[in-house]
């Protein structure tokens, strides 16, 4: 081939390339072109698959903006009374307001064993965790994750026995076992099975052992208002009642509260479904973290909040870091500052002075409990010690009397410091 014809051929090819190039991707360097193709494949895989407990499964359909994702009652047993508002505390495991609701029953322990749990909507069971008290015996109980669509998960649904259909899930599944106990007392072994088993609303999921309803994880939203958002999981802890169809939502909303036996104690203060975010900037109200301790777990930390059933009540939710002071303790707060700095609502504590609390009450998750005799004569002193109000000093003292005059309020070496 002559040089002329060679040149012509190459120029023709180059011209063709230039004409075609706008319609195709163009890259400088084959390495960059390969990386771009790798990015394309990764993005495609990311859109077609999702993480289900550490394994890749085909992605569920998007929820879009749909909130009415639960179309069926998860519990139909006549002993069911209500759902608990978010924000229940039970230190040290739930020192911070709980990010889930609970099923409230008026049932004997025997009756509880026979209560069925049904799928709250059409969707998929994506994970079943089996917990064993003895490695060689049948699981003691199970927890389930239900997803009505890609962005929403209802996790930690517990049952004692699993519906037969879930023992042999449809489609691919993967199981891994370990000594992870999930902080469940008595558990020595657990097995996590990831799956995408389709269920329809009202389908039996299991029986007995129903406790938690939620948490709800919804990646479409973020919980706002935390003083330090980086400390919290912001897409977890939404009200599960908000995900029911309107008729069920209205019925359940009317019963949100606690119960004392058959007596329902309705929450009347908005939001009636409660909230896990009670931080109030510039005040002592909200979550406080023990310096250097990890979160989760809740155990070493502190929450100065309002009760999830009766928010007019103040609650000290104390983990394991304050000497002599642990658990959940309520008090009747003053809602206006009267100059005494005694028993002020946490929202009124907004400076660097010392405040005092006395007359701690028995936690009344299930009804008013009255003064707590275990803490008679005890007082709690607290003070935000820095100008930015991000450091809290707190101490339980036992003067044997209610809060004495402020002039005598002073911390000892037992005082503990927390941070926002």
């Amino acid at each position, binding site marked *: 081939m002559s040089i002329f014809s060679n040149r012509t051929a190459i120029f023709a090819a180059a011209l063709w390339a230039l004409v075609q190039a706008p319609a195709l991707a163009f890259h400088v*360097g084959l390495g960059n072109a*390969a990386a771009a193709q790798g990015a394309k494949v990764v993005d*495609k895989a990311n859109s077609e698959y999702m993480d289900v407990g550490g394994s890749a499964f085909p992605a569920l359909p998007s929820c879009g903006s749909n909130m009415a994702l639960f179309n069926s009652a998860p519990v139909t047993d006549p002993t069911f009374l209500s759902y608990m508002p978010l924000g229940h505390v039970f230190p040290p495991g739930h020192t911070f307001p709980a990010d889930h609701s609970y099923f409230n029953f008026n049932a004997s322990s025997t009756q509880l064993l026979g209560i069925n749990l049904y799928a709250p909507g059409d969707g998929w069971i994506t994970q079943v965790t089996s917990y064993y008290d003895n490695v060689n015996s049948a699981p003691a109980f199970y927890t389930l994750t239900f997803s009505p669509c890609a962005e929403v998960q209802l996790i930690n649904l517990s049952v004692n026995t699993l519906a037969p259909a879930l023992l042999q899930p449809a489609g691919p599944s993967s199981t891994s076992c370990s000594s992870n106990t999930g902080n469940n007392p008595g558990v020595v072994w657990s097995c996590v099975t990831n799956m995408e088993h389709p269920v329809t609303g009202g389908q039996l999921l299991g029986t007995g052992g129903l406790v938690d309803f939620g948490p709800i994880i919804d990646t479409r939203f973020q919980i706002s208002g935390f003083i330090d958002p980086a400390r919290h999981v912001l897409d977890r802890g939404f009200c599960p009642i908000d995900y029911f169809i309107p008729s069920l939502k209205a019925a359940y909303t009317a019963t949100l509260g606690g119960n004392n036996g058959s007596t329902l104690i309705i929450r009347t203060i908005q939001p009636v479904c409660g909230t896990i975010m009670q931080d109030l900037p510039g005040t002592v109200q909200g979550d406080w973290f023990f310096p250097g301790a990890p979160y989760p777990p809740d155990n070493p930390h502190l929450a100065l909040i309002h009760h999830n059933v009766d928010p007019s009540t103040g609650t000290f939710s104390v983990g394991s870091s304050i000497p002599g002071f642990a658990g959940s303790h309520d008090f009747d707060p003053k809602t206006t500052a009267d100059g005494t700095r005694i028993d002020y609502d946490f929202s009124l504590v907004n400076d660097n002075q010392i405040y005092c609390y006395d007359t701690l009450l028995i936690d009344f998750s299930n009804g008013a409990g009255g003064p707590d005799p275990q803490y008679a004569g005890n007082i709690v002193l607290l003070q935000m010690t820095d100008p930015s109000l991000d450091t809290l000093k707190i101490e339980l003292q036992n003067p044997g009397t209610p809060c004495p005059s402020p002039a005598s309020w002073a911390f000892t070496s037992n005082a503990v410091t927390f941070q926002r």
Partner: protein
Amino acid sequence: MLAAADTRTPPDPSILYMRPPGASDPLIPSTTGQLVVPGSPAGPRRMALGINDLGAQLRLHLNPDWAAEVRYLRGTASSDVGTIDANVFGVRGYRFFSEHHHFQLYAGLEAAYVSTSIRSYNNSNPPTSVANVSGFGDTSGYATGGFGGVEYRLGRRVAIDLDIGPYMIGLQEKVTSVSDASLDFVLDTAINVYLF
């Protein structure tokens, strides 16, 4: 049928030289030896070591017209889940054409093994993203294509290459087995040092 052997006397060699019509003297080359293209510096042409787009290459000329090359390239791109790094191990075959005024056109084919991985993840990946699955994001596959370009001789040993061509790149993600192939146009450049 076979012809009988030619026993005639051989012709005068001088009449075998070409000559213009009417000329009496034969055309005899005035010089002999290697053909030299005017303006082209003589230099080694056998093996070249080069630096290309984020990589390196080694070229071996089989003869003045044909060459083979092995090369390694790296690359980077952004994806929804993070930054992607690529490694390319390729083999090229070249056909070189005549050199004129330091320029030499060439064309060729390439086949390459490609692997990519996620170097860094975006913080915005949701908890349910498959990007959270261990091992997700590693891909492997091929790149193959043709190219045409030009090499410009800067001196006796140094030359720069510029070529462009269509490449088909096909990759498969290892955790999900999701794959995709597409046709891209690729512009490649290199600086070569001819060793000998």
